């Protein structure tokens, strides 16, 4: 049976490069996923208020949609969707009282108690597909490319849903290493990009994003790999603002981890939609002879 796939809203608009490259890569790998025919926005941010249960309704409804189809696993690509769905699932599994409140409120849906497993493509590749098997499928490994893994917040926190050790993660390191890249460790890999602060306090977001980019560059990284459209917004789409504001700041190409996966598997660059990245992203892959030409 195919695995249920939950895309999330941004992957259908601004983050098409994350979705399209992932789907192409999974096809090459033979990972059979099928987008849920019916899903709603998960809310993107898991509410930190204990009693704010209304914001848990949206992700739980998505999990109900998976369970209703008789599927036991849902795979995500966006780290914020992963985090929101996984935390809602954790609540439904472990908090009997809140589970009852939510099930009673959603009286038009079947009861749910955390039966579905929420995974992210990264831990799926590690735990179920396996790095060794992935390595065998590579056509165009990222040899000679110095890439820094940027985890951000939501893959690693809180511990209930963390895909790896929150302070000493190796998941993305292993992933990039498997793809053949020279992995560049840097101290800001688990720091926040500024997230939604970019709306209310853009200067603060620019400052922390700059620290991340310069932290990676100082360690010799030529590029940054990430998993989250909001991180991409702060570090990639708004990088020009950073470059303008900080003297000596240098351009850092930003990739979704799935784009690097796809090109390494030999997927045509056109399918990775580099036009939604900074221009430097496709250019660097071309310079490293990983792709033969920058798509028009």
């Amino acid at each position, binding site marked *: 049976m195919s695995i249920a796939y939950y*895309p*999330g*809203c*941004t992957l*259908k*608009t601004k983050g098409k490069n994350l979705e399209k490259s992932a789907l192409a890569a999974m096809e090459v790998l033979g990972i059979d996923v099928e987008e849920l025919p*019916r*899903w*709603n*926005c998960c*809310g993107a941010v898991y509410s930190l208020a204990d009693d704010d249960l*209304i*914001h848990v*309704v*949206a992700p739980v*409804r998505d999990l109900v949609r998976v369970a209703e189809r008789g599927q036991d696993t849902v795979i995500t690509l966006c780290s914020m969707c992963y985090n929101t769905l996984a935390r809602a699932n954790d609540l439904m599994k472990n908090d009997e009282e809140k589970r009852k409140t939510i099930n009673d*409120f*959603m009286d*038009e849906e079947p009861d749910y108690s955390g039966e579905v497993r929420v995974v992210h493509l990264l831990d799926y590749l590690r735990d179920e597909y396996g790095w060794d098997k992935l390595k065998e499928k590579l056509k165009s490994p990222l040899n000679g490319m110095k890439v820094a893994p940027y985890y951000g917040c939501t893959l690693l926190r809180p511990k209930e849903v963390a895909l790896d050790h929150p302070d000493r993660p190796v998941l993305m390191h292993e992933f990039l290493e498997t793809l053949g890249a020279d992995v560049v460790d840097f101290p800001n890999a688990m720091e926040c990009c500024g997230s939604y602060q970019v709306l209310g306090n853009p200067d603060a977001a620019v400052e922390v994003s700059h620290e991340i980019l310069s932290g990676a560059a100082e360690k010799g990284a030529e590029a940054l790999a990430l998993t989250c459209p909001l991180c991409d917004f702060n570090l990639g789409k708004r990088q020009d603002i950073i470059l303008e504001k900080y003297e000596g700041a240098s351009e850092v190409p930003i990739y979704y981890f799935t784009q690097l996966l796809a090109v390494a598997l030999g997927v045509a660059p056109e399918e990775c939609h580099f036009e939604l990245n900074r221009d430097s992203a496709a250019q660097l892959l071309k310079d490293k002879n990983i792709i033969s030409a920058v798509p028009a």
Partner: protein
Amino acid sequence: MSTTTEQTAVEAKMIPIYVMGKKYEVPETLTIMKALEYAGYKYIRGCGCRGGVCGACSTVYRKPGDYKIYTGLACQTVVEPEMYLTQLPFYPANRATYDFHALEGNPEEIFGLYPELFRCVACNACSKVCPMDVEVMDYIAALKRGDIAAAAQISFDCIQCGLCASRCMGELPQYHIGQLARRINGAYLTPRAEHLATMVANIEAGRYTECLNKLKSADEDELKRLYTEERELEPAQAGEDWTPKENVCL
């Protein structure tokens, strides 16, 4: 047993209903709309087509011993004993002003005109009250991810009654947003019907002018004759490829 059929008028059973809290006895066979008129109310607003398509007569009701909110169109819903009801002929909901022809038809324009779209928490209260069984939450969800065509499809049966907006905890005017999606879908996303353009060109080139003039100048008898005697009728079992022999006016 008598051989002639006797027609006896059967009195409809009378049942109690509560209109805005006041009790009335009405025949159990009536729709809510007719029951209100039976009870002496006169419609000035809150009634339009009487056929379930205009959305003017949304009604909210509850049944004894049941926490659920029920809704229906007053012109379509039959009364039930002990129902408590009120009509909601209008519900205020913000409608954005836009110059439709200045739009390009992309999701960002909808997000800009209706930023409250993102206040939806997927509570589904809207779908639960929709008298047309539209999955309101789902068309809002489709729009949040920029899928205008899906939103237009899902909201197709909406009759703009406003009940969804009355229940929304995100304070969205769902039906206005859905209408904008259907407009954009129709004008910008759906492929143009080429045969329509051909037809318009034919009309403008005068292809049907003579046929129409002939009909316009015919007197009543002549029209009757053309309609009953000369008209070529499609045979009852005609296949899909049937065309009339006389096709000058087609």
